[in-house]
């Protein structure tokens, strides 16, 4: 069980694909102008990641070492095609607003990275779980960034959520403040770079604080020992 806990910790925080490995930045930066888009792409990536991890793990005994990368790419491309057709059929408007970035999930390094680094060396239940937490970690960062950019740029949250979640989600839309002039920079690509920079800085800040705390506790322990010896 502890291995699954470790995987969760790695995927969501310690080794988060977007914040630490810095993989898959192209879709991360391009489609996070609103939280709905971010959620759509996050879920698509999550699905592909879990599917490809399971498949790669199942066929790992039969794939020769030399041609493993083409095989992984074929597997990933298959899942991407599936999700692309599904989105085209059921969430057409979101499919249009995500555009080229759905087929581009194939080139998302986070997915092939997990296939190579984890799924090709571990049994399928673990690989599936790894895909799940990595995908969730990636999707959470996408949504955080999408939310930040949507609030700063447009003053809204969950605008257009009904495109992804069905008609009931139209009431999810929150208008935090009215903007006469949207802060275009937040919605344009530079805003994505600056926003991601702030999120990574925030993560590093939290890590540094935790480390400082842990060190303090250690120090008190050693001092207690010294007094006991002398």
């Amino acid at each position: 069980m502890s291995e699954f806990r470790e995987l969760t910790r790695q995927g969501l925080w310690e080794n988060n694909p977007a914040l630490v490995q810095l993989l898959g930045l192209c879709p991360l930066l391009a489609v996070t102008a609103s939280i709905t888009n971010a959620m759509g792409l996050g879920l698509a990536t999550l699905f592909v990641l879990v599917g490809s991890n399971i498949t790669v793990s199942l066929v790992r005994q039969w794939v020769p070492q030399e041609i493993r990368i083409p095989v992984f790419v074929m597997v990933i491309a298959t899942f991407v095609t599936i999700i692309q057709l599904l989105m085209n059929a059921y969430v057409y408007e979101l499919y249009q607003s995500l555009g080229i970035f759905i087929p581009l999930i194939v080139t998302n390094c986070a997915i092939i990275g997990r296939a190579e680094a984890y799924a090709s060396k571990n049994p399928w239940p673990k690989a599936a779980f790894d895909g799940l937490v990595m995908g969730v970690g990636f999707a959470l960062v996408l949504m955080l960034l999408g939310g930040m950019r949507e609030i700063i740029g447009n003053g809204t949250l969950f605008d257009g959520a009904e495109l992804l979640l069905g008609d009931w989600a139209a009431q999810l839309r929150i208008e935090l403040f009215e903007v006469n002039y949207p802060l275009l920079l937040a919605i344009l690509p530079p805003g994505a770079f600056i926003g991601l920079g702030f999120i990574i800085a925030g993560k590093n800040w939290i890590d540094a604080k935790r480390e400082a705390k842990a060190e303090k506790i250690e120090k008190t322990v050693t001092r207690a020992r010294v007094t006991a010896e002398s």
Partner: protein
Amino acid sequence: MSFRIAAAPHGHSQQSTSGMMRWVCYALLPGLLVQSYFFGAGVWFQLILAIVTAYLAESLCMMARNRDARSALRDNTALVTAVLLAISIPSLAPWWIIVIGTAFAIIVVKQLYGGMGQNLFNPAMAGYVLLLVSFPVQMTNWLPPATISSHDLSLWQTLHTILFEYTPAGYSVEQLRTNIDGVTMATPLDSVKTALSQSYTLDEIFQRPQFGVLAGVGWQWVNLAFLLGGAILLQRRIISWHIPVGLLAGLLIPAFVAHLLAPSVMPGVLFHALSGATMLGAFFIATDPVSAATSPKGRLVFGLLIGFLIWVIRSWGGYPDAVAFAVLLANLSVPLIDRYTRPTVYGHARGDHNGN
């Protein structure tokens, strides 16, 4: 008696950062006065807003970093950033424009990179680009110069417009820009760019009311006043000649050649030299010692690159003026410029640098 040994370099210019920055502000005064004569007193309100925002932002950052805020404010670098940004934006822009721009310049562009002397980009210009990209309408709403404008704003009307976006009588800035014939008066650079795209020739464009003897009405004198301020800085050795000369050469030589080849569509030397932010950029913005190249040769290349980029963007780019974009692009190239213009150490062979 103590015999302290000072560290090299022993030659010292006897100028403190604080004093140099104060002189930069003094040298901006002629330009500021001319600008407020032609474009209204709004620039002084923008100046106050910018300085207050810059000082608040700088103090907050220094306190968050557990540093002494007062010593940081005393070096006057935040003051120069604020003043440059206030001069660069239209004088009737709404108050939150300058506040957002200055706060971004100080907090993100300057302090997040490590504060004074550490920033990669010119803070004022990065703030300007943020504003220009985000609020293109407000950032291009320059009033026509007072001498040809059909509206005359009092101090109170100016302040009211900056605070509430309308004059007390309910005119928007867009309406104030319209002349008596109902035509919106664009800036000289803007009108040249638009009219050229409508297949007018330069001769026809220069007949319009916003063009004077040398270049645009008002703008020509603003630029000459900034040139005067730049001469003061050069004379007091606050800046060296390399960047301004490089910038003007990079801008004016291509402009001269292009004007010879295509006189009806490429504006000439005078127009480029005395329009938009040319002189302000050459003497006050590009000469920021932190984000410019380091060696004299490097600075010449840096200036040439900015000037050439200004000419290219003015001629074919999407925006009428280009000083901010050109400066930021050149800031990006500074490490490369520094690498290839490293001076040879005395006693070493040419190109013999330590390490390679």
